[in-house]
């Protein structure tokens, strides 16, 4: 046995294959015990096969290493299997490389990337694009809204996932410095939040409705309440409803179920009194 076991390098094609496997199968067997461990191993497996060749024992150890508990936001977090793939390549070609570095790198990165990914992608970008889609379709039910949402979301996120995995592989741990850069993160988040809030405000104004049907009658005089409200500002009452809901959720810590029941109770009272 020689000390230098092998010197196999991964080709671009091998990396792309691992990349697409993560892209598609990251969550395929997600479960409460290992979360995305099965998907992580799936992504690594082809490259590991090539790196270890006939060395079944080494392959077995590497596969077991990749099957451990792993959980992150899989879209932004695709940089982590990218980095891990580079580390696995180093390990396969250099038996002296401390394998615990691989596990500790994964464990160190999954939390922060879950946090950033959930807040930027899932919590902000996805609802903003959905709001735009709602805005495009809420008046006439045209299929444009859902299509614009689906195409723009896929184009942005699939491209980003693919790029991040490759970035992780080529830059290794340096990619982390780039991506967890506070200033860059704050700039992206603030831009998205500001654009999002204005667009969401516009979309909400076309979606939330509170039409008043009650008319104040005194002798011959009939006062149409809705017309008066519209003269002050169009959509005034729905805005009030929206802001009260926000106040209850943000300042009074109402959960979604409580608020849902609250709104329904309000609707029932308004209908019973003949106001709406």
């Amino acid at each position, binding site marked *: 046995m020689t000390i230098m076991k092998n010197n196999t390098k991964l080709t671009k094609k091998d990396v792309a294959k691992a990349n697409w496997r*993560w892209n598609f*199968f*990251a*969550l395929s*067997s*997600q479960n409460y015990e*290992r*979360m995305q461990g*099965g998907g992580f*191993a*799936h992504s690594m*497996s082809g490259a*590991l096969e090539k790196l270890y060749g006939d060395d079944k024992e080494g392959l077995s150890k590497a596969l077991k290493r990749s099957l451990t508990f792993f959980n992150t936001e899989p*879209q932004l977090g695709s940089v982590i299997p990218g980095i891990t793939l580079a580390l696995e390549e180093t390990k396969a070609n250099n038996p002296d490389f401390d394998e615990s570095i691989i596990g*500790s*790198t994964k464990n160190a990165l999954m939390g922060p990337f*879950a946090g950033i990914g959930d807040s930027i992608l*899932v919590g*902000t970008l996805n*609802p903003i694009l959905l*709001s735009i889609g709602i805005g*495009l379709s809420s008046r006439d*039910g045209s*299929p444009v*809204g*859902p299509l614009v*949402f*689906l195409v723009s*979301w*896929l184009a942005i*996120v*699939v491209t980003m996932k693919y790029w991040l995995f490759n970035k992780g592989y080529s830059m290794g*741990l340096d990619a982390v410095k780039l991506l967890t*850069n506070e200033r860059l993160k704050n700039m992206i*988040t603030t831009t998205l*939040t*500001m*654009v999002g*809030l*204005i667009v*969401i405000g*516009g*979309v*909400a*104004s*076309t*979606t*939330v409705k509170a039409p008043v049907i009650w008319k104040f009658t005194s002798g011959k005089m009939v006062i149409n309440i809705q017309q008066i409200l519209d003269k002050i500002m*169009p*959509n005034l009452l729905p805005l009030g*409803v*929206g802001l009260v809901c*926000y106040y209850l*959720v*943000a300042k009074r810590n109402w959960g*979604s179920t409580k*608020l849902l029941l609250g*709104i*329904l109770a*309000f609707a029932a009272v308004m209908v019973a009194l003949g106001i709406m």
Partner: protein
Amino acid sequence: MQLWQAVLIGLFAYLGRNQVPWFFGTTGGWYGLGRPLVAGLICGIILGDVKAGVLCGVAVQAIFLGQITPGGAVPSDLNLAAYIGIPLAIASSGSPATAVAFAVPLGALGVGLHNFTMTVQAAFPHRADRCAERGDARGVRRANIMATSVSFAERFLIVTLTCFIGAPFAQGLLNALPKFVLDFLQVGGQLLPALGFAILLKQILSEKWMIFLFIFGWVLTSSFNLTTTALLFIAIALSLIYIMAAYRKNEGASSVVAATPSTSEENDDDYEE
């Protein structure tokens, strides 16, 4: 509803379910096809009434707008809510308010199903462990792919059967409801989107003053009848002005760090927490 329509709806419900890999993983599935907005279009096409489908999708989506799924925990299963609530609404009355009335309780029911599959699927990593033991990489991949059969059995069967069997019942149920209840559903359905927007606002508001951006967008759209696309460009322009003003200070040094990461190794420890 014809059986083939129910089967197609069940298939799309499966493709748009959390964890299902076939359409760009979670991006195209749960966050794409699984969103009620998209489900509305798909169900509308399958059932032959695109307009009703999209409007139902918009109504259901607005309520669930602020829902995120941190760490695989689902607060409400909007996929089940959409793929059963919307088809039943189209088949019975076509009204968005009905879709909302069906969708909300289904969303809560779906959470139980999600927890069930997340537990059952734990069997598959153990299978993968045995394959890894003998160095069988292909077996590890197969175990990961096979796990999606649990999701298939759960989502496809439940959605297809409920849509197929439930459609006539939904019709009968709506016909039997008194006028007060229908009015109530109508008004409730119009007010409920406020719920989705309120939760979304809480989630993305980072500074208090930003609530005025929401009001700004609201007032602008209702006063000038702007399209969403026009509003989007106004919003981007305003945000860029703010960002340029706010981040201009100390630009020199830190933007270099942002653009070209250093190659030194000594800072690696920062990320090992």
